[in-house]
């Protein structure tokens, strides 16, 4: 069973008198427990695709199934609850809450997912240890470097133990060395926790690390590469 299934998904933006098709009849299946990268030129529709998969944007038509749930049938509140429990987000600009400490930022999604206090504490400590920021738990995001903030964002995304983590250009605002470290960290976390990661990225380091690679152009799937663990590639 796939973690994400899109069938005939279409989305058009209406800008004044001009209609801009962002997604055109997308059929896509994303395998569970994989490191999947969506790539394509600017304006190709990859961010829109990620938003639809992340249930923060609705397609004009088509079917979207995430973690076995037909998400278009859900109300706004039910979608919020669904995201809180099943989907983690990593943003290009980290998007940490500036008034919360590192610890609290990681803990916050678990409050939304109604995880009990003891379990929250256990998970936050374990995650901060995993991303190497255990000593920064009481710091505010403004006191951290870009790489450290993205580590916190990774920990936050994984805290509610989602089945799917979405990352939109997670290394775009980092230098290449830090970007490589972050990719390695995400890869490691993905393998340890058997979570499905879906990225939007131009970064060749990200592309190289991917299990599956989806190329999108002008709102259409151009190519899907599925790399088997042994290194075999299936198109």
């Amino acid at each position, binding site marked *: 069973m796939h973690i994400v299934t899109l069938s005939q998904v279409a989305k058009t933006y209406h800008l004044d008198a001009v209609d801009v098709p962002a997604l055109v009849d997308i059929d896509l299946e994303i395998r569970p427990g994989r490191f999947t990268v969506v790539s394509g030129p600017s304006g190709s529709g990859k961010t829109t695709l990620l938003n639809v998969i*992340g249930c923060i944007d609705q397609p004009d038509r088509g079917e979207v199934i995430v973690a076995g749930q037909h998400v278009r049938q859900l109300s706004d509140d039910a979608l919020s609850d669904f995201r809180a429990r099943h989907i983690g987000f990593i*943003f290009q600009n980290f*998007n940490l809450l*500036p008034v*919360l400490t590192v610890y609290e930022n990681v*803990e916050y999604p678990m409050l*939304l997912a109604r995880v009990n206090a003891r379990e929250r504490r256990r998970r936050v400590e374990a995650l901060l240890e995993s991303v190497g920021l255990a000593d920064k738990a009481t710091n505010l995001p403004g006191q951290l470097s870009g790489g450290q903030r993205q580590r916190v964002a990774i920990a936050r995304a994984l805290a509610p133990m989602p089945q799917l983590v979405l990352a939109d250009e997670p290394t775009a605002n980092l230098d290449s060395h830090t970007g490589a470290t972050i990719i390695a960290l995400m890869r490691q976390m993905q393998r340890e926790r058997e979570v499905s990661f879906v990225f939007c990225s131009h970064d060749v380091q990200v592309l190289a690390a991917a299990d599956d690679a989806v190329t999108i152009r002008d709102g259409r799937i151009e190519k899907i590469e599925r790399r088997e663990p042994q290194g075999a590639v299936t198109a």
Partner: protein
Amino acid sequence: MKTLSLALRNLLRNRRRSITTLAAMVIGVVTILIFGGYFRNIIYGLETQTVAQIGHLQIQHKDYFLYGTGNPAAYGVPEYRRVIDIVAHDPVLAPMLTVVTPTLSLGGIAGNFAAGVSRTVFGGGVVVEDQNRMRQWNAYGLPFIRRPLALTGTGDDAVIIGTGVARVLQLCRALGVADCPQPDTAPAQGASAPADVIALSMQESKQVPATPAGEARIELLASNVHGAPNVTSLRVVKAESQGVKEFDDMYVGLHLSRAQRLVYGGDTPQVTAIVVQLAHTGQIPAAKARLEELRATTFKGEPLSVQDFRTLNPFYNQVVTMFGAIFTFVAVLIGAIVLFTVGNTMTMAVVERTTEIGTLRAIGLRRGGIRRLFVGEGLLLGLIGALVGVVAALGLSWLINHSGLTWTPPGQANPIPLSVRVWGEGALILGTAAGLVVVAVISAWWPARRAAAKNIVDALRHV
């Protein structure tokens, strides 16, 4: 993470803006409380002054209130001693009473026979000891200094008059009244007075000893119970300002026994009112209900009615209504200022935190959670503003109350300390604080609603 904790941190994020908003709210609360405390003090002062003079309730002839002032003698209460005795010893009323005393209102003409001047006057006869006890009523602990009536310890023929009466009757010099100019033109000499009145005055003046040098006397002419004129000669012991010129120019006050002799002569004496003063104004409904019960049972068949001081003195209600309207106007004005100030602050916060709103929504916070977050910030602003405002108002009122400033309220002759009554006014404080919090929450509601309605993708793209 509780919503209010997050809201508080967001408020602290932009401290200058939060402090500016709080300052507007604090000034609003202080203004309302100081104005409210000042108005409250005036109302309490007016109530105290009224109750000290006319009591809380009066038992009168049932038609006296409507028609009696034109002919007080015809609307008296003949069995007043029995009524007073029953009221004073009633097991329900007795615990509430401070004073039950008779009064007799009368109108007439006061003349200074020696100077050949006269004028119409209105006043009454009172039991001086009872009136002195009534003047001590001060249920609100106001800084009044109430001196005993000038009639205290005087003989039956003593009278006090308004300074206006003293001026017209040319008694200022004899009574030592300051700031009392004499007329430039000499008054017409007595020829215009009716012959029978002159005869009565002459007869009365022969019955009293010759006026010692420096003593002021007047002749008071009034209609007796049979409609005939009667006159009595009185020794003026003091001229007192009554605060209101119209009253000051007409007032005479004398002993009840003398007033009764003037009006009723040798007939059974009556009074026009039995004044009932209670320990607290809040006891009026219970006391009035009991008096009505007595009226329907014990006093059945006697033409009596019970009036409270608000009915007897419409000026009190007019002042209360006027100050209520002013206070409401000020409160609404300040409420509007707070509404727009907090609304503006929250709107700016929503714009600045659009990306944050998108992030929170993306990671699973419901629209209701976003609304609660911003409304929570408004609530906290309201609570902090109300708390600081109340403390500041209490401090400022303390300073004003200890500043030594004085003022002369309308209807009073002497200045009193300027006082602002905030401490102890629980309803005023709670009402103002709650009103501010409600206004702050309402003003945060609209920006919060807009924040919650934002499209997640658009919010995340916001720069």
